[in-house]
């Protein structure tokens, strides 16, 4: 619901006013007929359940009265830690993804061979969707206790990866997240590089600008919205992730999505109101990053025309 900032709400309000005005006009009303099944679907399986979830987070289970106790409960260490872990892993893997993804994207963009370029873009396309259980499992095979790389490091460099590092811990999960964050960033940033016209670089050069000046005054400002879009999308992508963490760390690392999942499965005895409060706070965090993402992509489109 929090996605409904004024900017997104504005067109809805206009549309609603038109709907009200057109009530007396049959042909105008007919316009909305074709929309009906789809709107009904969204109301029934998204908006109304989410509204009830928000309402439920403010309702006391026994008295049925209004309460903010569920939100006050968020100050307990276990919940604070879940939020901190979720934000930390999403922020960290988003930043790593943006920096390395931009470097890789640039290297792909500048590569002379078209066929290799396309192959790398296709690889990014497939691997960014290679997540969840299969991904978690692949990382256990290479970096688990008896993993291939674990042994390789021990045999050839006499370096013991464990117990300093563990694939079942925060750093292990972060590495697995980077695996699907990197290619996603590559896919976001390549169109932005394509958008920087050769002519701009040439005209900057002809006016005496050096490379640093070109990137400082032209390149980065043009890439800026794409970088911001990437950062927010990657953040949201990791924050909402569940399957990879479920397979890899399960209960060894407390994340918001995992906690909510445990509550649904009934594995932890908590007031359901607390789970709903966690969900509502997460919607707020997700909404914020998606809203910034939307604004950033509108700015990206301005350059891609």
């Amino acid at each position, binding site marked *: 619901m929090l*996605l409904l900032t004024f900017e*997104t709400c504005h*067109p809805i309000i206009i*549309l609603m006013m038109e709907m009200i005005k057109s009530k007396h006009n049959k042909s105008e009303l007919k316009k909305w007929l*074709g929309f009906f099944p*789809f709107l009904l679907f969204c109301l029934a*399986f*998204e908006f109304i*359940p*989410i509204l*009830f*979830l928000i309402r*439920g987070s403010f309702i006391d289970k026994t008295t049925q009265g209004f309460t903010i106790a569920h939100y006050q409960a968020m100050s307990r260490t276990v919940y604070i830690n879940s939020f901190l872990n979720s934000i930390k892993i999403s922020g960290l893997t988003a930043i790593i993804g943006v920096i390395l993804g931009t470097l*890789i994207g640039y290297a792909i963009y*500048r*590569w002379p061979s078209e066929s290799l370029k396309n192959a*790398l*873009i296709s*690889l990014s*396309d*497939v*691997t*960014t969707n290679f*997540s969840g*259980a*299969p991904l978690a*499992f*692949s990382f256990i*095979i*290479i970096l688990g206790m008896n993993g*291939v790389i674990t*042994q390789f490091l021990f045999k050839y460099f006499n370096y013991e990866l464990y117990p300093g590092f563990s694939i079942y811990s925060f750093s292990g999960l972060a590495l697995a997240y980077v695996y699907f964050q*990197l*290619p*996603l960033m590559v896919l*976001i940033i390549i*169109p932005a590089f394509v958008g920087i016209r050769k002519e701009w670089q040439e005209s900057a050069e002809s006016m005496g600008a050096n*490379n*640093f000046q070109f*990137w400082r005054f032209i390149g980065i400002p043009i890439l800026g919205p*794409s970088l911001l879009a990437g950062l927010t*999308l990657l953040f949201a*992508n990791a924050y*909402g992730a*569940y*399957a*990879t963490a479920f*397979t890899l760390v399960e209960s060894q690392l407390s994340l918001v*999505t995992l906690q*909510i*999942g445990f*509550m*649904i*499965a009934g594995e932890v005895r908590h007031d359901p109101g607390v*789970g709903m409060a966690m*969900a509502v706070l997460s919607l707020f965090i*997700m909404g914020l990053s998606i*809203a910034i993402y*939307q604004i950033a992509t509108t700015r*990206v489109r301005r350059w891609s025309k």
Partner: protein
Amino acid sequence: MRMNKLFRSIVLVLFLLFMLVPLIATFLFSISTRWDRTILPEGFTLEWWKKVISRGAFGLTLKNSFYISFATSIALTILVTPTAYWVHIRAPKSKVIFEIMSAFSFGIPGVILALALIRFYSGIPVPLINTTNILLLACMELCFPFMYRPVANALDSIDIHTLTEASQSLGGNWISTFIHVILPNIFPGIASGFLLVFSTVFAEFTLTNLLVGARFKTFPIYLVEFTRFDGRQASALAIISFVVAWVVSLLLLLISGKRTITSDNLTIGH
């Protein structure tokens, strides 16, 4: 900022290594006799593949996954395509509603959607909880932007107004115009949407696990169960799910000819 060629090559080689090593290792693991004492597998065998394929649950979960993926793709095609056409031709201003719905769909993680659906539908007398239908509906909600986006792009790329007028001047009504004139023209868009939805649902774990759990085991659920007791066979399953995703990507590439990537048609939600 200018990177020389050597540096760019190193970046790409490292990227390739990072992306490919987990996949290659998983594949080798699934065909090796023993691989926990040595750097390279001690020998190769197809035993694990044979074992995993011969299990009854293998066929069942694969069938369940194909069923739910096809059902979601077909249901979304039927729901979204006519609506998108209607919006484009009759109420182009309300395209923004689709944009907002897409943002919602991206912004609500699977865990939260599952929680909201369970809370709401267990409180009212509608027999949906714990059924395959609720999973289907939740998957539709999660995936509809993947259907809408390619279809909307296809509708934008043809002159639907002229086509519709021409068809109507020849006596066609809305329905026959849609089926005989518009559908064939936007078919590549529909096919792309269909495949995107298909591969997303095929890999779907969160909603399935939380909404139906063990009552309707899909391939990803089966895979997670396997990782806990037999790594060899689990790695074979992981390779199969990767191959499905890869085949769908190839098909998508074939349909769209040249893949044009924009940040609009990226899929998120892991």
